[in-house]
């Protein structure tokens, strides 16, 4: 029982690292939130402030935490928050006990203004963004960037459309589901679609925008590939990669 209580306390005070997305100062109290923060579950936090955390500027600790959070905000560094499990600093906002800034030491010195390619979490930097067109982004791998080598890498992915065309091996959208495009992210169902290029199959019907069609003459003998659904991208993680200023 004691172990369970300890485990519960640990779980409720620890938080996943995330980028700071809101900071405000009110009556000498700092209110802030991060992208990864879950709603507060402690009873003193009001419904309207469940997404926020607070600390006072009346202490040395609070003023130092404020400097840390402003640094994290200005440089897009992630912070990790540990709760004090009370609302002692402001009536209805959960107070934090400690704050940790996680710096990205792979960054070049003073690279403000450069554009980085990041994993979907927006925190893990893959490298220096170079160029991109519909379907792929080119970047310099961060290890190569630090050693001033030229090592271009590409992230291939299309995304943004409401739904993807799905082909079928049988008439009237029956049989095996097939896919023709390269790695694709559906914003509708938050899933990556890929095609097994090693095993082409003749497509006899197409499902598009909620209806089933026969292939037209130009796509007669059209071959598609068995569809592979996956929840993660090999490089970007659980969603599309992000491009932003470092």
């Amino acid at each position: 029982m004691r172990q369970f209580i300890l485990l519960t306390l640990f779980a409720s005070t620890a938080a996943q690292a995330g980028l700071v997305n809101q900071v405000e100062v009110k009556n000498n109290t700092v209110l802030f939130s991060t992208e990864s923060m879950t709603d507060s579950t402690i009873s003193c936090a009001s419904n309207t402030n469940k997404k926020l955390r607070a600390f006072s500027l009346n202490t040395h600790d609070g003023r130092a935490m404020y400097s840390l959070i402003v640094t994290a905000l200005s440089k897009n560094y992630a912070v990790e928050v540990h709760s004090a499990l009370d609302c002692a600093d402001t009536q209805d906002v959960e107070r934090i006990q400690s704050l940790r800034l996680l710096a990205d030491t792979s960054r070049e010195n003073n690279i403000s203004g450069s554009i980085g390619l990041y994993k979907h979490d927006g925190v893990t930097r893959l490298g220096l963004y170079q160029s991109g067109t519909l379907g792929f982004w080119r970047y310099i791998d961060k290890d190569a960037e630090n050693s001033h080598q030229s090592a271009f890498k590409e992230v291939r992915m299309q995304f943004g459309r409401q739904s993807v065309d799905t082909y079928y091996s049988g008439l009237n959208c029956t049989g095996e589901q097939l896919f023709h495009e390269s790695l694709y992210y559906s914003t509708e169902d938050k899933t990556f679609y890929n095609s097994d290029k090693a095993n082409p199959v003749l497509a006899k019907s197409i499902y598009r925008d909620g209806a089933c069609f026969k292939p037209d003459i130009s796509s007669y003998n059209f071959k598609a590939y068995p569809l592979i659904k996956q929840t993660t991208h090999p490089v970007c993680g659980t969603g599309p990669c992000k491009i932003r200023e470092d």
Partner: protein
Amino acid sequence: MYKYILALSLACSSCAFASSKIKQVELDNGVVVILPNIVRNDSPCTTQSWGLDMSQEQDHALYGLILTAVAMAKPVTIEGTQVCIGNGRYERISKVSIKD
């Protein structure tokens, strides 16, 4: 014994670690805890992290310098006081220098 302590004291009166970028900065119970990217192994305290005492005015300036280094992703060289703070866990910093 006295000679041994004196020798140790002279040898480590300005112990510094190799220039390194800062990996983590944490605020915990009045102590700023600093973890460099290159972790040393000669701390006189129970962890290898460095500490700043936020109740001491002189540590505020050092904290400002550490945050500047973090923001600019520049390496720093840190020297310690051989004094442990935060329940004996972190060596208090005496000097921080930022160099290109």
